[in-house]
């Protein structure tokens, strides 16, 4: 860990939904241009955690947070932070593919457009580049004007990744991106993640232990709103330090 550059540093972070504390004293350093997997049973706080990283929790009125999440030495959760420019830096791909009901092109062009890109050629170039980076270009190049909803689930999810890439974020959050996909689409997205970590910091929430083991460099194990263990993935899976980590990754509960 010492040799890694840190992208996001989380210090003593707590989160409440009304009176219910969902995250308890989280401390975590997320390394730059690596894949960090968050694992743990349902309801352990993984999703609550990554939704803080791009402030999507702001949409829930009862949420209250305490502590620091530092990105470029700026506390993400400070009330003065410009949420729009934060979300431009921290992209997110959701559990269920959620392309807009418009064409493939429009889906990818949407982000650059709202951020002020008007030049048609420039847009076309960004769209092509993003689709290529999301390993989808070859499959959709002939039907870029067709509706995004005509794509398969796996293609839709890669389209959502392309849509995120088009905004040029530094960090990509993936919230169980493969849970609604078949094994072939899943392996395509896994290959894609490994390719993307050359340029992006990737944080993925997953319920799939093998997936975490296959793609991630670091893994954090969450339980009851706490991080029980955080380590290099190889170490954590081969020789977990905590008993509950071992029980979870060997499938004894969860």
């Amino acid at each position: 860990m010492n040799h890694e550059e840190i992208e996001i540093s989380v210090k003593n972070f707590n989160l409440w939904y009304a009176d219910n504390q969902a995250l308890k004293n989280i401390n975590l350093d997320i390394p730059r241009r690596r894949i960090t997997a968050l694992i743990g049973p349902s309801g352990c706080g993984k999703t609550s955690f990554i939704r803080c990283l791009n402030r999507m929790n702001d949409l829930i009125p009862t949420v209250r947070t305490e502590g620091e999440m530092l990105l470029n030495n700026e506390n993400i959760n400070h009330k003065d932070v410009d949420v729009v420019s934060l979300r431009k830096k921290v992209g997110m791909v959701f559990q269920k593919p959620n392309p807009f009901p418009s064409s493939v092109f429009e889906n990818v062009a949407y982000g650059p457009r709202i951020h002020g890109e008007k030049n048609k050629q420039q847009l076309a170039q960004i769209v092509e580049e993003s689709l290529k980076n999301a390993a989808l270009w070859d499959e959709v190049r002939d039907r870029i004007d067709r509706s995004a909803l005509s794509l398969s689930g796996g293609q839709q999810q890669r389209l959502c990744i392309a849509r995120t890439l088009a905004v040029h974020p530094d960090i990509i959050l993936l919230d169980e991106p493969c849970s609604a996909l078949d094994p072939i689409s899943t392996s395509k997205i896994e290959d894609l993640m490994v390719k993307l970590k050359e340029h992006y910091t990737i944080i993925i929430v997953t319920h799939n232990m093998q997936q975490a083991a296959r793609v991630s460099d670091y893994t954090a194990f969450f339980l009851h709103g706490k991080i029980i263990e955080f380590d290099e993935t190889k170490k954590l899976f081969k020789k977990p330090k905590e008993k509950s980590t071992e029980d979870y990754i060997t499938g004894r509960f969860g």
Partner: protein
Amino acid sequence: MKVRENVVKIGLCSTSLMAVAALFIVVAYVFFNGAGIINLSFLLESPYRFEYGGIFPQIIGSLCLVGICLLFAVPLGVASAIYLVEYAPDNIVTASVRFFIECLAGIPSIVIGLFGLVFLVYRLGLGISMLSGGLTLGFMILPWTVRASEEAIKTVPYSYMEASLALGASKWQSIYGVILKSAYPGIITGILLGMGKAMGETAVVLLTAGSGLESFLPQSILDPVASLPVYIYMLATQGHTEASYSRAFGASLVLITMFLIISMFAMFLRNRYITRNSGF
């Protein structure tokens, strides 16, 4: 058991047939009594007394009134719906506003017409005019456009909003760029229903827009304007001759046809929009 099932089935079938037949009889009656009078000169000439001439000013007048009504009610209705769904806090005030709008939709049109007459025509001095009529019609359908737009906006999946916000779009950008686009077909349907109500409305127009028999085209929005429903009302109540009744039926047939054409056009727009975006 089997017998009972069949009795229910046949019973329901015959009642629905009766309902369809009742509607069919009305349309057929209008058609047979009105079709004979319709020709080019009926459509393109101005009326002269009760028994002569055509209904050109009435057709144009009706279209103008509906146009002003929509220009007023649609932007206001859609904007209020956006506020109510996306911005208004979830509290008693918002709930009361919603309830109030629902109640407004139930106000009899003659009451709204009376308001238009006293407030717009006299108090604001707009006179019996196209503007007064269109605005009053707008008041009448406003609750309907708010309600329909609200429903349409509510049915847009929350995941679209989330996706847009996660890309760094502001709330308004998300509403404008994603939510409204997806809600568009539903909003169109709502506008259509409102338009149908406005187009056939008689009481409001009678009190605020004109006497229906005007034989001239309005030169400005402050001129009185003829309209098909009021024309029909006049012929039916004042004409008392075979010729005026058949003219009333002819005008009715034109009114129904106009509404059908506009509906079909709107449906076409809506369906084209849906197919283009659903990908099938």
